[in-house]
């Protein structure tokens, strides 16, 4: 396998990894939205939309990252991106806990 072929695959897999992360976040966003809608609880609905935005951001990140890498951009993972992802998951955890605790 030539080096050029391999790097192309690496870029694609990295973009897909972000994509799948966005999809995983989307599932959580929909569950939180559902909980908020069923209980008619506005703060939880708002949290659901926040997570929806986060999942869109992760999916967009996948597209951006794959494109950026394909153009020969730097491979280093931006530290801020990693931190933002951790923050996103923590918000999702808090939202999930709240969604479970509200009166149904």
């Amino acid at each position, binding site marked *: 396998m030539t080096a050029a072929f391999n790097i192309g695959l690496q870029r694609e897999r990295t973009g897909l990894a972000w994509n799948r992360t966005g999809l995983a976040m989307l599932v*959580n966003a929909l569950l939180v939205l559902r909980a908020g809608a069923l209980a008619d609880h506005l703060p939880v609905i708002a949290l659901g939309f926040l997570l929806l935005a986060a999942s869109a951001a992760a999916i967009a990140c996948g597209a951006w990252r794959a494109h950026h890498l394909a153009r020969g951009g730097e491979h280093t993972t931006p530290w801020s991106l*990693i931190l933002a992802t951790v923050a996103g998951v923590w918000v999702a*955890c808090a939202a999930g806990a709240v969604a479970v605790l509200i009166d149904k």
Partner: protein
Amino acid sequence: MARQRRDPAWRQGGQEPDYRFTLANERTFLAWVRTSLALLAGGVLLDQFATRLEPREVILGLAIGLAVLSSILCAMAYVRWKANEIAMRHAQPLPTTLTIPMLASIAMLLAAIIAAIELVR
């Protein structure tokens, strides 16, 4: 090799790793993030859809427990990502971790608890 100005000191030491290792580390981090999100979703799903499982307090406890576990796993994902970055920069072997046996144990425990709840009913 351009460096982001706001990178912490540990990110600037040693040598820039081979691109394949950098991207592989990124994907590994994301795999752990997805595992966290899956566990979190599992907890919320238990609460919302497993409506005939009793007692509800146990289900609630499981859901909250999974949310907490999810946040811990995500923190560990970051710690591992950082440790791998540092190891790669200094041509060290990658650090070992107990996260996978830990995760496997927790998943089995969770399955056992749900099976027990169902059997007791």
